[in-house]
């Protein structure tokens, strides 16, 4: 275990000392904030169009609406940030072993103090803070930006409270919980691809091709898709629980997962992640460094 922690510590040091880490953090936060700002601009444009229609038809100007509910734009921004972060995690994981193998750093670590298994497990452990960062950074950026332009509150329609603030916060908690396991599995999947690839570029290409290929064609699989971790990730063809939270925040009563699907979302990706890491260990043990 000490060897795993040593590899983890060294890799964390390398990752956080480079400029890339700062740029990626700022980029992720920027994407999430921009998405919220876009929602604000869109809402302002809708209100301006309504005003223009009223005035041009000789009616009284509609009452100036106050800022909309922040929960919807917040989830949109968060979702966009996590979607980008998922792809970045996949790229980073795919490079983690393959690029170091290509560049000779794995040989260095191997001859100094680390077994091949420790090299994989240390990098697997690195996925935990990175996944947390991938979720928390967009959440903070989107949440903060939404607070600047909108008001957090219950979902109200025609004077009736459809969803209370507490219920929305609880749904956000479920959304956060549902996002963690598939992202961890995505990291592990990237490591597996990395362990079997000949170089960093090839590993990234292969991982992206497989991941995006599944994303594009998962509809064809029908309900069977829910047995693959990637089906629960925020993505371009999005079917994640966070997307459902966004719908709930806009008052859609049929949004959300069934309990069985939610449990599958929570528990299925973890053994898949474990299997991917085991296979990555096995693959690296068999490879010449």
């Amino acid at each position, binding site marked *: 275990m000490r060897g795993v922690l040593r590899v983890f510590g060294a890799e964390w*040091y390398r990752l956080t000392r480079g400029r890339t880490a700062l740029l990626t953090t700022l980029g992720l936060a920027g994407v999430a904030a921009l998405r919220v700002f876009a929602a604000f601009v869109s809402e302002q444009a809708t209100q301006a169009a309504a005003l223009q229609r009223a005035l041009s038809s000789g009616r009284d100007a509609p009452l100036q609406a106050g800022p909309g509910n922040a929960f919807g734009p917040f989830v949109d921004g968060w979702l966009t940030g996590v979607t980008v972060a998922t792809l970045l995690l996949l790229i980073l994981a795919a490079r983690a072993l393959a690029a170091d193998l290509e560049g000779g750093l794995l040989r260095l670590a191997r001859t100094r*103090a680390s077994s091949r298994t420790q090299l994989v497990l240390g990098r697997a452990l690195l996925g935990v803070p990175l996944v947390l960062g991938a979720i928390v950074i967009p959440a903070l950026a989107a949440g903060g930006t939404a607070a600047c332009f909108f008001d957090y509150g219950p979902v109200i329609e025609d004077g009736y409270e459809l969803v209370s603030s507490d219920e929305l916060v609880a749904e956000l908690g479920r959304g956060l919980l549902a996002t963690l396991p598939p992202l961890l599995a995505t990291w592990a999947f990237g490591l597996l691809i990395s362990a079997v690839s000949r170089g960093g570029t090839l590993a990234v290409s292969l991982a992206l091709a497989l991941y995006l290929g599944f994303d594009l064609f998962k509809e064809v699989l029908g309900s069977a898709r829910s047995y693959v971790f990637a089906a629960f990730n925020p993505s371009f063809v999005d079917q994640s629980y966070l997307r459902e939270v966004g719908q709930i925040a806009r008052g859609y009563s049929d949004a959300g997962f069934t309990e069985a699907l939610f449990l599958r979302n929570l528990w299925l990706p973890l053994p898949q992640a474990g299997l991917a890491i085991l296979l990555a260990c096995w693959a690296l043990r068999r490879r010449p460094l």
Partner: protein
Amino acid sequence: MAVMRIASLEKSFGDVRAVRDLSLSVEAGDLYGLLGPNGSGKTTTLACALGLLPPDAGTVEVLGVPAARIHETAGRIAVVFDGTTLVPGLSVRQNLTYAQRLLGHAGGRQPDEALRLVDLAGRDHQRASRLSLGQKRRLAIARALLGRPELLVLDEPLSGLDALGVVTMLDLFRRLREDGITLLLSTHRLHEMEQVVSKVAIIIDGRLAVEGDLTTVLGGDEPTLSIRLDRADEARAVLEALPDVGTVTVLADDQLRVGATPASAAAINSALVRSGFAISELRPERRSLQATFESLVTERRAAAQVVR
């Protein structure tokens, strides 16, 4: 005490037998040169010895640990690979800190001392990607010196270095050996290695051609003197008449090689001057590592042709 022991090592890649029945031993305190032409199997031998490549047969022990579990030597061995294997986005000091973290303890030689040893002090904050090739190589060596390595393995340590860099590096190898570190250098730079190594192994076509102390490997030949003078042909008769002179070979109109010890140089010089020859140069000749290496390659390859 052997710090690295290789016995009956075999490694093939498909039909190509890269290493055949190779055995060698690096003793503590050696400055050991693993020499051979390109493609002779040096790097494959090292990769097997360092647990990076599984051998087909044979055993390898490094510091008493089987090569497959080399990480258990926990920092007692350090390797500088061909190519610099640095993290380009990190600074000089950050590269060393990264290596220290991989090593897992902060004892032994620290970054400041390691940088001073390779003449990189003062470049702490420079990005590794902006160093010259020679500086990158020195940084890789500084990284290897962190902690308390007992065995330092360097694969092609002189490639890409300018003349001054080579001199600095050879001096560093001598100093490290004096500090008690055993060095194993894998290279094809014979002339430079001859100046520093104490023991050599020459690998040709995957087989060990010779292993031993440098003086033993170079010895065994008759000591010779090289003489430059006018009328080499006529001088030959004068020299053959002298006692303690072996074979006399005319190499050119103005050059001779005489089988004689350096101690008889004065007598030979006097005899030639008395006979009216104008001598422009007289020096003892030692067989070089390059010459030994060339004759071994020729011998081995000729023998291989006969077997085929």
